């Protein structure tokens, strides 16, 4: 199963690499959101510093809806979904593979965003280990929940509007947990950031299991 998952992941990443959508559209969008937050908060440096963690993760949430929509559209065009089913790959492996591909793209965006908040907001990272662990664990959960919900709205006319309505509330624990962990890593609030990783990991495990169990039904019936 892992081999199949890896095949699907590399397929999606290759398509992404050739089309360069993440680099040419999603990353600039993420940077733009950071700049807009700067305008909205009147470029007030103390306020920006205080809100950096939250702004970072809100931007990641927005980007995740784009990444998931992109990942879903790869399968809906040219009947690729049917071809994937006919290839005889286990749906759970397809789910894991697509989640890995989304997670890798999100991770790349997060690294760019991290550089953005350091440069634009003058954020001072005190604990790099915590920052990378949070990004890693949170991204797994976001990618899993996003891939599952993306498959759910695939092929539906109103998917662009329905996906954020479904995905963003489900991601609320990630926003809360990852923001608190970043607060600790950036030294903006005195909290134990590591303790939040447990919650993020729990969210990730729940959504990976849910996705692996229900992805097949969605792939075959919708």
């Amino acid at each position, binding site marked *: 199963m892992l081999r199949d998952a890896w095949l699907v992941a590399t397929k999606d990443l290759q398509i992404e690499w050739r089309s360069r959508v993440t680099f040419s559209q999603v990353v600039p969008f993420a940077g733009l959101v950071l700049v807009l937050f700067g305008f909205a908060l009147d470029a007030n440096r103390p306020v920006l510093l205080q809100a950096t963690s939250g702004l970072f993760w809100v931007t990641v949430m927005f980007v995740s809806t784009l990444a998931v929509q992109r990942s879903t559209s790869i399968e809906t065009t040219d009947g690729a979904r049917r071809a994937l089913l006919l290839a005889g790959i286990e749906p759970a492996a397809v789910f894991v593979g697509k989640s890995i591909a989304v997670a890798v793209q999100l991770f790349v965006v997060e690294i760019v965003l991290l550089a953005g908040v350091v440069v634009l907001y003058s954020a001072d990272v005190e604990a790099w280990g915590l920052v990378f662990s949070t990004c890693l664990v949170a991204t797994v959960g976001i990618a899993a*929940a996003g891939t*599952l*919900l993306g498959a*759910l*709205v695939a*092929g*539906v*006319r*109103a998917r662009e509007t*329905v996906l954020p*309505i*479904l995905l963003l*509330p*489900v991601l*609320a*624990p990630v926003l*809360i*947990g990852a923001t*608190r962990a970043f607060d600790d890593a950036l030294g903006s609030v005195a909290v134990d950031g590591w303790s*939040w990783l447990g*919650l993020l990991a*729990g*969210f990730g495990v*729940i*959504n990976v299991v*849910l996705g692996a169990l*229900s992805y097949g*039904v*969605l792939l075959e*019936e*919708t």
Partner: protein
Amino acid sequence: MTNPPIDLPAHTGSRTTRLLGAAVLVGVVTMVLLGFFVAPEDDLMADSVRMIFVHVPSAILTYVALSVTAVGSVMWLWKRSVWWDIVAHSSAEIGVIFCGLTLITGSIWGRPTWNTYWEWGDVRLVTTLILFVLMVGYLAVRSMDGDESAVATRASVVGIIAAVNIPIINRSVEWWAERTLHQQSSITDGKLEDWTLFTMFLGIVVWGVFYTWAMTHRFRIAWLERELRDGDLDEAIAARRAEAATSGGAS
């Protein structure tokens, strides 16, 4: 030969629903009398304590409705039971109303008690808002295009995702807020007495009966809609066959 037209009832009422409806009416009138004239005002919260007669039953019924939707969703995926699918959908629609009522009454109660309509430090209020948005998302999926079976499958997965994620959403908000301004459970903390407690329990019973009444009607409407659609299709197929037969099989 065409099929006879489907025999649809003129309304969704029955003796049972009329009895349930009458019980709700009597219950609401009793609640108003007890809530405004018999139950005493609270030492701390004064008259605003009366809001719990609506707030607590609404909150409890929200979770009951969500649980029924989750069970219905599992049963659709497991048994492909149309009956359970309609139950899940109907329960979600009624649950959204209860959830909205919980949020509105909670906010109105919060104004005199906490001096604000919305308190971010309150775990249950924030969790209930996220639950409300999730239920609205569920109904959005229900209204999406596609064949009935695909929509039911999509909605069932959303129902299960919502139900499974609610505990972790609640836990995250709880840790985030670090402390909660919310009242401890009104039922278990033992501070409510006599008529106040009785009226609140009566509210739970009345809301429960209302839920049953509304579910029965909503279920019957959805079932009849389905019958009508299937009947229309059967009729159209029969008409087409008859047309083909009269034109000598050419179509």
